[in-house]
């Protein structure tokens, strides 16, 4: 029987964690119950991007978009939509003003403003079915390049202007050319899938949603440099990505896209998975090579660069997941097409992971040069709960925070660098007025001290010293001299650390000092945290005019620090209070106030 409806269910990380699997199983059960399981095809796809709406399902041919599904909703969708042709109104997307958008994927700016290149297949194909990848031009580019000379292929990638999407933005074509020119009997391609920047999940989504594109990109890189073997180094934190890569590799073998004599040519290529073991520094290429070899992931001095001496001391190209996902499209559509998008020095598109205090948290791909304002407000839907935008953090622990006055900056590698941050892998964590910028800097320094491999002194000791000073400041024990100390340490670490992790570790401190120095000064001089977030500097207090004596706060307090009779005004015992904020969260009458601790004496 012919298929009448196709249902795409997003099986990206966020939707799975929101309960996608049970929605799907109820859906399939209902389809069987009404005996329409042979005319309705259910496909689990990769991440559709609108992660805050999950679990999501789109029903074709109409393209009706259902969101935030519960398992029991699947039954209603089958009975109403599929059997009676009446879309279930309450499960459709509703905009902020209540207007219904039944075909959200074609109507919302979140979707329509995107240009998908690296993520073209995400949310469209079934990642564990190689035929769906082939149907969307999969492995066409590989076939095409095998008829080109490696030199022409490298020229094409150079013309496209593609730069590495993993962080530093090195031109991909140039990297390939260097490795091609290194003389050796053996060469290697490594896919860096050790996506470690907190707040970045684009590589995970590509690996889970379109694993074949990574394999195809690696093979093309292999052909360009003259390699026959590739490694994918993937984080152990991504078990689903590992599972889908394993499936993709075995399918590619079965179809003859991996192995000996690919497409009947002399080109052979094989791919092996290497699983990380939880060390952030392994995203740094020389450390990654050590880890691929099964050793401690400690960086080594460059030069020699991996292009000369990489894994097993052989010339090696290391490309990030998103970089590789762009390659097949550049080959299919041409370098000029790719270079027509973006800015002068940053071509093509970039995938961003929007997270933090933003309405439409999720994954988006836009042309380079899109402004932060478009990304955060037009596409990202702005800040939740009517709060004020304070900063956006890019580039993870190597990057920095950008304040509101630069929201109209077009985003590319160079403009972000000028603002004192970096593109990094594309994670964007949005912060609102409740986020303390000193505490954010402290958070990142905590991260780098934990993840410092300990090999070089500036990084091992220097970041620890900086963290110590930041701890002092957030506890209200800082002095003005500490700011100079931070700046001095930052400069020394940047100049002398061995690898990228250490050299960029001071960036979060430097950028917050540059744009939010007043917050540092408030902590030091006035002992106030302007965001009312640093525990040592705040206190919780009951507003006697608002408290109705409902006892909710007293019950929520884990240490029994709140006392008061029912229907009478309650009181917080400041000595017992551990400032966990539980009372603040449970009070429905806005009667718990967060105040500066220094004001306690005067206000009580």
């Amino acid at each position, binding site marked *: 029987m012919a298929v009448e409806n196709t249902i795409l269910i997003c099986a990206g*990380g*966020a939707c*799975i*964690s*929101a309960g996608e699997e049970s929605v799907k199983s109820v859906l399939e059960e209902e389809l069987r119950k009404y005996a329409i399981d042979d005319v309705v095809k259910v496909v689990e796809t990769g991440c559709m991007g609108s*992660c*805050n709406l*999950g679990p999501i399902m789109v029903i074709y041919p109409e393209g009706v978009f259902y969101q935030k599904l519960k398992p029991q909703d699947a039954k209603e969708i089958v009975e109403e939509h599929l059997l009676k042709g009446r879309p279930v109104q309450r499960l459709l997307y509703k905009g902020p003003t209540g207007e219904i958008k039944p075909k959200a994927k074609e109507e919302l700016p979140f979707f329509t403003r995107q240009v998908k290149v690296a993520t073209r297949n995400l949310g469209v194909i079934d990642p564990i079915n190689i035929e769906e990848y082939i149907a969307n031009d999969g492995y066409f580019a590989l076939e095409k390049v095998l008829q080109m000379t490696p030199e022409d292929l490298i020229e094409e990638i150079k013309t496209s202007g593609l730069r590495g999407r993993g962080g530093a933005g090195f031109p991909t074509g140039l990297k390939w050319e260097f490795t091609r020119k290194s003389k050796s009997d053996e060469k290697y391609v490594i896919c860096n899938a050790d*996506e*470690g*920047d*907190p*707040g*970045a*999940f684009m590589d995970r989504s590509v690996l889970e949603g379109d694993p074949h594109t990574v394999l195809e990109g690696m093979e093309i890189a292999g052909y360009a440099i003259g390699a026959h073997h590739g490694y994918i180094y993937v984080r*152990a*934190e*991504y*078990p689903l990505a590992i599972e889908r890569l394993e499936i993709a590799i075995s399918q590619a073998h079965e179809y003859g896209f991996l192995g000996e004599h690919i497409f009947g040519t002399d080109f052979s290529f094989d791919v*092996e998975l*290497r*699983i*990380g*073991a*939880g*060390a*952030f520094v392994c995203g740094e290429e020389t450390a990654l090579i050590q*880890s691929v*070899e*099964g*050793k*401690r*992931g*400690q960086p080594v001095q460059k030069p020699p660069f991996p292009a000369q001496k990489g894994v*097993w001391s052989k010339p090696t190209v290391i490309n990030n997941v998103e970089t590789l996902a762009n390659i097949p499209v550049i080959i299919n559509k041409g370098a000029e097409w790719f270079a027509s998008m973006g800015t002068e020095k940053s071509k093509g598109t970039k995938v961003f*992971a*929007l*997270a*933090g*205090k933003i309405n439409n*948290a*999720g994954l988006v791909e836009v042309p380079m040069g899109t402004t932060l304002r478009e990304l955060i407000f037009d596409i990202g839907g702005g800040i939740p709960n009517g709060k004020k935008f304070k900063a956006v*953090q890019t580039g*993870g622990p190597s990057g920095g925070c950008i304040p509101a006055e630069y929201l109209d900056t077009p985003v590319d590698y160079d403009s972000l660098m000028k603002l004192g941050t970096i593109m990094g892998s594309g*994670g964007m*964590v949005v*912060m609102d007025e409740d*986020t303390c910028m000193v505490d*954010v800097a402290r*958070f*990142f320094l905590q*991260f780098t001290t934990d993840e410092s*491999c300990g090999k070089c002194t500036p990084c091992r000791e220097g970041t620890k010293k900086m963290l110590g000073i930041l701890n002092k400041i957030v506890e209200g024990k800082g002095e003005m001299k500490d700011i100079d100390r931070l700046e001095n340490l930052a400069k020394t670490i940047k100049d002398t650390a061995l690898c990228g992790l250490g050299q960029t570790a001071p960036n979060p401190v430097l950028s917050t000092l540059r744009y939010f120095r007043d917050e540092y000064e408030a902590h030091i001089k006035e002992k106030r945290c302007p965001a009312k977030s640093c525990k040592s500097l705040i206190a919780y207090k009951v507003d006697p005019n608002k408290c109705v004596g409902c006892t909710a706060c007293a019950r*929520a307090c*884990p240490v029994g620090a709140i006392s008061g009779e029912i229907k009478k005004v309650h009181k917080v015992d400041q000595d017992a209070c551990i400032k*966990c*904020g*539980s009372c603040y*969260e*449970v009070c429905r009458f806005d009667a718990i106030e967060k105040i500066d601790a220094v004001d306690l004496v005067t206000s009580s």
Partner: protein
Amino acid sequence: MPVIPETDSRFKELDEYIDSVKEKKGMLIGVLHRAQEIFGYLPKEVQSHVAKRLNVPESTVYGVVTFYSFFSMNPRGKYQIKVCMGTACYVKGGNKILERLREELNVEGSEPTEDGLFSIHEVRCLGACSMAPVVLVGERDFHGRVTPDKIPHILDSYRQKEVKGNEDQKS
């Protein structure tokens, strides 16, 4: 902690894996992953065994085990609770989740609870930032948009599962 005797059948299982990857270069990390899957952790005797079988110095094995945060030399809880400490989770209160968990379970580090049921692990970004703050129990049980109040319920759901499992076994 009792030493695992060499006669333990799990060593045989590990050896089978080692034999299957013998042809490949640089498999130490892969072998340790498998060993930890089999034993739950990597005590000294397991490390010695791996060193002997792969013909590398014990110090090399120890060096790798202690370098990577995924490897543990101590037993862990049956349900490993991984609290995401990524930026997005942190900004949305991940540290409060961690504090509440520590309070509820009365543990300070990553050691298992007295009943052996739980252990808490601070982990790097789990890549589920849109659901922040996130707690992952085991490999696949994601809990998104967690608030401190939800912690006791989450813990109870596993305790109940355990009770039910025990009853099923008896009956």
